């Protein structure tokens, strides 16, 4: 039993906005009342649910090749072992132990990897098992799956839905992820998809059909988190039209558009960017079926890693730095390039401003989540600074002094005076991601919720405040005090088990025999072995 008394509580899901009230923890959950045990006097402190990162890249082959590729990213940011924590390295692609510890030390207790190729699901689970403290899961890539494209083309909606369900079960993933739908397949012959209606050579489908079919599947399967979309044309000037088209293509279907910052550019391909956030945010504001996370860019050196192969090559051409490309049989691809965002660069400054515009122009905080698309826009270690940029207009204006003025002038950022409240911060970093993910016991402090709690000392400098929580409680255990981890624990992995018609396996087996290099029987991830600590999230009708 833990009693947290006298704290200023921010729990948006339960409509609690800074009231001083006591929180009771019984075992692993929030309780209505209780006595005895530990008491934390949180007078003058802010109490929030544990943070949730709904889109980051922390596990799986792409992340790991990036680690292998960048010793220089690691050797100057090292973590010695302690009596109870493992050693590791940081940088933009931290080792797994460091990733878990640093999320926890920052008050984050849940994180989802956003792009795992199904064929490598086993690998992602192995890494997640070595990522301590946080609860986790991943979305698996389906937007360029050749089996899916073939059956969309032949109009076999049932088979597509059953296959998607089978694949989620086989990979023990949490949701369906689309990355540059159709474009990554085209990249396998050096092409790309430039509009929603480009035909994917050899498959007679278009990105539009892929988006609609898999959005339907995610709804029909009642996935707790609906389809998670990385649009076509990421990072290309003028891509905002594609983004708008994608939103329209969803019609009234629920869908999440990720790292929207990277998809909000006006201009002509190859040329300079300018912001189209106003237009896109208007559309999002007026369409409650849509949600976004930002993918904020922060200045400095980081590593771009994406399932978007052609984008990886584009970044290699722009930066001239080392480049990894991996094409995954019948499924996906990926591209990795180190990148340094410079405040004096017109393009980078525009990206920085666009991200902030998104935060400030979306009216409903319940449909926007704070992310950097770690590590693509910046490392997750930047979240506290981003929070300060949102809460502190003065700091924001001061920061604008250092970035390319021409770029800023082409955005509305200088005119935006909105400041986030602690309540709104609690929404975009906790409550909203929990809701968008359909995690009923996360992101709030109501009775029965998981006892993941972060307690901050109040501080006018919000970056300081959010960098070093006073306490972090995970599953009812006090793990962090004053930013120091007191104990090493393992979180659990969330996954879904949607039902499907077993008949589909006959089709799939045939497909494996013809085109895969692993046996159908050896493909599915063994639940007991690879998810030793797990929680299946039910797929039920949430309407």
């Amino acid at each position: 039993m833990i009693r947290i008394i006298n704290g200023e509580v921010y729990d948006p899901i339960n409509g609690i906005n800074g009231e001083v009230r006591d929180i009771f923890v019984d075992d692993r959950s929030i309780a209505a009342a209780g006595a005895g045990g530990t008491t934390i006097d949180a007078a003058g402190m802010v109490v929030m649910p544990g943070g949730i990162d709904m889109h980051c890249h922390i596990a799986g082959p792409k992340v790991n090749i990036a680690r292998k590729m960048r010793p220089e990213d690691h050797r100057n940011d090292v973590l010695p072992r302690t009596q109870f924590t493992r050693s590791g390295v940081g940088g933009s692609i931290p080792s797994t132990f460091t990733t878990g510890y640093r999320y926890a030390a920052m008050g984050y207790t849940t994180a989802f990897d956003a792009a795992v190729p199904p064929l490598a699901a086993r690998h992602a689970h192995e890494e997640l098992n070595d990522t301590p403290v946080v609860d986790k899961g991943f979305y698996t890539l389906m937007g360029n799956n050749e089996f899916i494209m073939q059956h969309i083309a032949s109009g076999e909606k049932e088979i597509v839905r059953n296959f998607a369900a089978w694949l989620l079960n086989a990979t023990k993933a949490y949701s369906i992820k689309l990355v540059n739908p159709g474009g990554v397949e085209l990249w396998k012959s050096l092409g790309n998809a430039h509009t929603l209606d480009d035909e994917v050579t050899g498959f007679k489908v278009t990105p539009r059909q892929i988006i609609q079919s898999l959005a339907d599947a995610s709804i029909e399967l009642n996935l707790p988190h609906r389809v998670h979309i990385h649009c076509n044309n990421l990072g290309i000037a003028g891509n905002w039209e594609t983004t708008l088209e994608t939103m329209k293509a969803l019609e009234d279907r629920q869908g999440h558009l990720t790292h929207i910052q990277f998809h909000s550019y006006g201009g002509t391909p190859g040329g300079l960017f300018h912001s189209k956030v106003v237009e896109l945010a208007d559309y999002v504001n007026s369409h409650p079926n849509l949600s976004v996370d930002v993918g904020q860019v922060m200045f400095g050196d980081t590593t771009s890693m994406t399932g978007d192969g052609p984008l990886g090559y584009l970044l290699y051409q722009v930066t001239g730095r080392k480049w990894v490309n991996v094409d995954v049989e019948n499924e996906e691809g990926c591209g990795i390039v180190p990148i340094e965002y410079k405040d004096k660069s017109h393009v980078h400054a525009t990206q920085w401003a666009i991200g902030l515009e998104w935060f400030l122009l979306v009216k409903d905080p319940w449909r926007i989540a704070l992310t950097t698309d770690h590590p693509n826009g910046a490392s997750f270690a930047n979240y506290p600074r981003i929070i300060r940029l949102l809460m502190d207009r003065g700091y924001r204006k001061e920061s604008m002094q250092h970035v390319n003025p021409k770029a800023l002038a082409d955005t509305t950022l200088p005119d935006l005076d909105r400041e986030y409240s602690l309540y709104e911060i609690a929404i975009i970093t906790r409550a909203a991601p929990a809701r968008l993910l359909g995690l009923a016991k996360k992101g709030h402090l109501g009775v029965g919720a998981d006892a993941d709690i972060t307690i901050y000392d109040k501080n006018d400098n919000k970056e300081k405040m959010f960098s070093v929580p006073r306490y972090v409680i995970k599953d009812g255990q006090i793990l962090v005090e004053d930013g120091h981890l007191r104990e090493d624990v393992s979180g659990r992995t969330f996954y879904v088990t949607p039902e499907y018609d077993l008949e589909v396996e006959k089709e799939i087996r045939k497909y494996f025999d013809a085109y895969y290099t692993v046996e159908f029987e050896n493909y599915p991830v063994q639940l007991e072995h690879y998810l030793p600590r797990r929680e299946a999230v039910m797929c039920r009708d949430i309407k």
Partner: protein
Amino acid sequence: MTTLHLKFRSNFPLDTESITPDQFKDKPVSEIARLPALLGNQAGALGDFFTIMDDSSPVITLEGDLGRVKHIGAGMTEGKIVIHGNAGMHLGAGMRGGEITVHGDTGDWAGAEMTGGKIHITGNAGHGLGGAYRGSRHGMNRGLILVEGNAGNETGALMRRGLIVVLGNVADFAGAFMLAGTILVFGKLGARTGAGMKYGTIVTFHQPELLATFHYDCVYRPGFLSLLFKSLRSQGLPVEAGWAAGSFRRYSGDFNTLGKGEVLVYAQDER
């Protein structure tokens, strides 16, 4: 300033990133003796491994066979270190200023990624002299390295600025992927000299075997070399009188990268 004498010989690497004038500055011997050092995996202090004597000299003097002592002078910004004996790996790696003289041989990565200062090695240097660590974008970036003996592979690899002078021979991949800077080799060069070089100059007195992507341009008298030779001569290096006025065969390359680098070969090298 201070003299350190290695107390005993051990097979274990002794890692002492703390032996720099910056760290010793204004410290009494008692404090210097408490600076960290690591023998194998055993954390200790300089005093455990060195007899430390204070003297009037303004330099740090090291004595004994320091062939297994790593990171001497690494990252130093000022002052002088003189080593009587061999020095281990990473000597002066990342140094930004000051001067290190080694009366003996050094291990690999001497002067790797240094950004200033001077390293003088009277014996042989190992591999990666003035080079880059794995994954880094550049090696040596400003400063001077002078080796009287031979140097190993990847000498000046990914070099960005500065000067490396080797009186003896240099093994394979001298100046590989160098971005700029100058490498002057009195002896013979190994294979793949200047592979992938963008800009920069490699000067030699013996015709090296060059890659197919280096092309012969002309014979000429590069003005900047006569200046370089004069200054080297003034430092007492065996620079022959004829060189300053001598002609050089110019090969440009590496055309697989940019082709703006040059390998200059002394035209009368049939001596």
